[in-house]
């Protein structure tokens, strides 16, 4: 088990190094010159030269990469070009905001989705089940920005119940005004819920056809026990993988949802850094998002192993 974890952590580190290299390549080497990208087509030669000097772009790429990585390992990512603050501080704060939103959405969405999936899976091919899975299909189809804007039209402009934007004032946290979390959470949950529900349902249906469930039924166990002890643990194994895949999807969804509600999280920061061409910031934000995803994958593998003795004891 220890070896398994060590191996996975090693893989994550390798992944992150590759990712950082890739980001570095994409943002610094590929399209000509950072300075031109930052200033646009109208830039003067003098302006370009000054930026190149400031960023140390005149030195070879590998030196800059190593310096960057060296800083990153020490927690020093440099300063943002536009905000003038240390990148570590900005990213830390924004990451915190996003984490609150994500955890909120996950806590609301996942248990409900798993429960609904089991419920529907037990009633496979009945009218109610078809209704639920059809709704689920619609749920995964509607893009986040559509759901989000519909919620705003409904709750803000029509019912005047909730604030239409989720701006966080400096010095406060999202929890100071928790009502700003409601609509973003609902938007993320809609997709999350639908997807996890559908997958759980499919897994439950599959496990219900396994020989060992037949054994359990023919042992004369009550249906409740058959489901809780025999169907659920086995149906949850593949569901965990689905939940992680969703975590990656949710990171993408966060970019959109935060944009819709002007919620100052990591996703909005990413778009901001793209729009302002704040390269040092963009690099760090991307790396942090990739790391989050990688870690969530590790967590999934570990929980899979914890539930499945075939992996745990191998």
């Amino acid at each position, binding site marked *: 088990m220890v*070896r398994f974890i*060590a*191996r996975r952590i*090693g*893989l994550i580190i390798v992944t992150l190094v590759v990712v950082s290299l890739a980001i570095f390549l994409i943002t610094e080497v590929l399209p000509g010159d950072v300075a031109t990208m930052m200033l646009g087509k109208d830039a003067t030669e003098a302006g370009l030269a000054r930026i190149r000097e400031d960023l140390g772009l005149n030195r070879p790429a590998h030196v800059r990469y190593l310096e960057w990585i060296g800083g990153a390992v020490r927690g020093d990512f440099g300063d943002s070009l536009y905000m003038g603050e240390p990148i570590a501080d900005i990213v830390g704060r924004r990451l915190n905001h996003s984490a609150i939103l994500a955890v909120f959405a996950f806590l609301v969405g996942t248990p409900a989705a798993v429960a609904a999936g089991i419920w529907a899976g037990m009633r496979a*091919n009945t009218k109610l089940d078809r209704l639920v899975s059809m709704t689920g299909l619609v749920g995964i189809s509607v893009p986040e920005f559509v759901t989000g804007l519909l919620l705003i039209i409904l709750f803000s402009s029509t019912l005047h119940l909730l604030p239409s934007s989720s701006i966080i004032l400096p010095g406060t946290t999202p929890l100071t005004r928790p009502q700003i979390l409601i609509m973003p959470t609902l938007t993320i949950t809609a997709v999350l819920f639908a997807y996890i529900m559908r997958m759980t349902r499919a897994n439950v249906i599959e496990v*219900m*056809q*396994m*020989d*060992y469930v*037949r*054994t*359990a*039924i*023919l*042992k*004369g*166990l*009550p249906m409740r*026990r058959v489901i809780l*002890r*025999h169907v659920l*643990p*086995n149906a949850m*194994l593949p569901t965990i993988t689905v939940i992680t895949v969703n975590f990656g999807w949710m990171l993408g969804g966060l970019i959109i949802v935060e944009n819709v509600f002007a919620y100052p999280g990591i996703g909005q920061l990413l778009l901001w850094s793209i729009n302002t061409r704040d390269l040092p910031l963009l690099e760090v934000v991307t790396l942090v998002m990739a790391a989050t995803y990688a870690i969530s994958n590790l967590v999934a593998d570990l929980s899979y192993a914890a*539930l*499945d*003795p*075939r992996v745990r*004891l191998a």
Partner: protein
Amino acid sequence: MTERRQHDVPLLAVDHLAVTFYTPRGTFRVVRDVSFTIQRGEVLALVGETGCGKSISAFAIVGYLLPFHPGESRIEGSILFEGRDLTQMTAAELRQIRGDRIAMVYQNPSTSLNPTMRVGAQMEEVLREHLALDAPKARQRVAELFDSVGLAEPEHMGQRYPHQLSGGMQQRVMIAMALACDPDLLIMDEPTTGLDVTTQATILDLVADLKQRVNAGILFVSHNLGTVARVADRVAVMYAGQTIEEAPVRELFKNSRHPYTTGLLQCVPQSLTEGGTVTRLRSIPGGTYAPEETNAQACLFAPRCPMAQGPCHTRAPDMMDAGDSHQARCFLWKDVHKEMWGGLELRGDDHRQSAEPVLTAEGLQRFFGQWQRKYLFFGPRVRPPVRAVTNIDFEVGAGRTLGIVGESGCGKTTVARLVVGLTPRQRGEIRLHHEELAPQVEGRTHQQRAAMRMVFQNPTTSLNPKRAARHAIVRSLQKLARLNRKDSTERAAELARSVRLEPAYLDRRPDELSGGEQQRIALAAAFAGDADLIVADEAVSALDVSVQAQVLKLLEDHQHERGISYIFISHDLGVVRYISDDILVLYAGHVAESGPAECVLNAPSHPYTEALLSAAPVPDPDAVPTRIRLPGAVPTLRERFQGCFFAGRCPRKMGPVCDQAPPLARTGPDSPSHVIYCHIPIEELSAVQLEHAA
């Protein structure tokens, strides 16, 4: 007449049971008319080929049908359990009976146990549910039960997960679970199918032992006449959803009164006659009656029956009393006799003489996988490769058949793949007609590929599901016989006829053919290139006995006409014994014994061969079971053997020498080509087996 008292209510009485499934794709009448009774302490075997409805009948007893087909199902007739009709019970009543009064053992123990639960917990569940035992009592009872089914370390067994147990141990756990509440009726659905032959023997021993120990009725469902002969008191034979004959086991095997039963018995390869020759197999022509068909006003077996007459085609026979508690669903039961499927012929021996070997293999070796390191690319080497085949020699004579036997994991399939070049060998030489063959098939010449063909185990995957059946044959003709399109189409029709198929079958897609038809197409494709040698890897193992006999006959006939050679691989000793001239016994990637068939099968033998012979079920209720049983399972092959490869399971282990030195090659007294790899001297090997025989 019988000792049974008439007023006694039988434990289980199934009367005119019929099961129909209504699915989106049509109506399936899987069980049409099944009747039988079981008394306490009696084993009734329900026998039949795939699709005859025997398992569905068994599951209908416990009211578990829906998962077989989506849609609706309907049960007709009655199933009286101690006089109460199970088909009329509510779900709650059924639940109380299941697992408590009626318990089941299933075909696949590995999938029938919950993989995420410890086996002890899975057993305790039953005890708590039905007997309301508290935790310590339940645990103690579980240990007792494990002990009673012969599991070692019963106190600790419960802590294990199913994947940590071998197939045989898993099945013992299933049996222990079924015995947990002292059931009155035990239903065993193909409990030994899928297990290795040596494990199968130990499980059958256990079942035979249960018969003495528990006071329950046992319904034993099986397709294998050999296992039935070993455990049953009475036998009910099923065909096309009907019970067609029921009789005490000896009576049925000696004196069957239904043409189908008689035919079935003669499809099983018999043991050698005294002269060392083999009687030829007979087979039942045609295919089984499809469950989509409605009940015809006729005997359902009539289309395949050699003695069917007028009334057989116009009236449906009922079960008729044939005396001595013997019943048969046949108008002409009095006329049924052994020779009705053709007289006894001895298998010709003329083609067996051969001087020239077609193929010789020397020092074949193949390991799978590579050493794995502790941390991906670094650290000590922790996981060695699997030593699937270690140093194997053999040769195949022209016009002769080499049979390769052994349990799963002994390396027989790997040997086949090394020979044809699907898996490249790592060491050793293979020569075809004295020409060295390249390790991989891609490196061999066109002539070499044409000279050696292969037939595989699984008929459904042997043909491309997206292509018409002709594809395999036509393509072989084009590539190997270098025929053009027109000629190959004509020749394909000829080949189809040579495997007893109408050429029209060639236009069907594989999923429109039965398993036997698919396998015959595969055989026709193998015959396409005029091969000198055909490697048949478990080519008949997936087929029902009647179909298996058809395919075996085709192979034999082809050999007779063309003088080609076979390498015939099977785990079924009976089949290998029937078809082989020479036999190679493999164990754990090593040759245990090799030589002419009659020498290998008679004394002196390698202890492993002895165990295999003793484990093979014989379709004869009077056969005295020789009780040589192997403990444990086939080793994982990741370690190199320091001593004899068989030392870990050998019932005749001599002592430390077996663990320290590799076994010597000893030549048998009967033939110079009979070789036994064992530390035990030949004289002793002969002597001990004589003792067994006596």
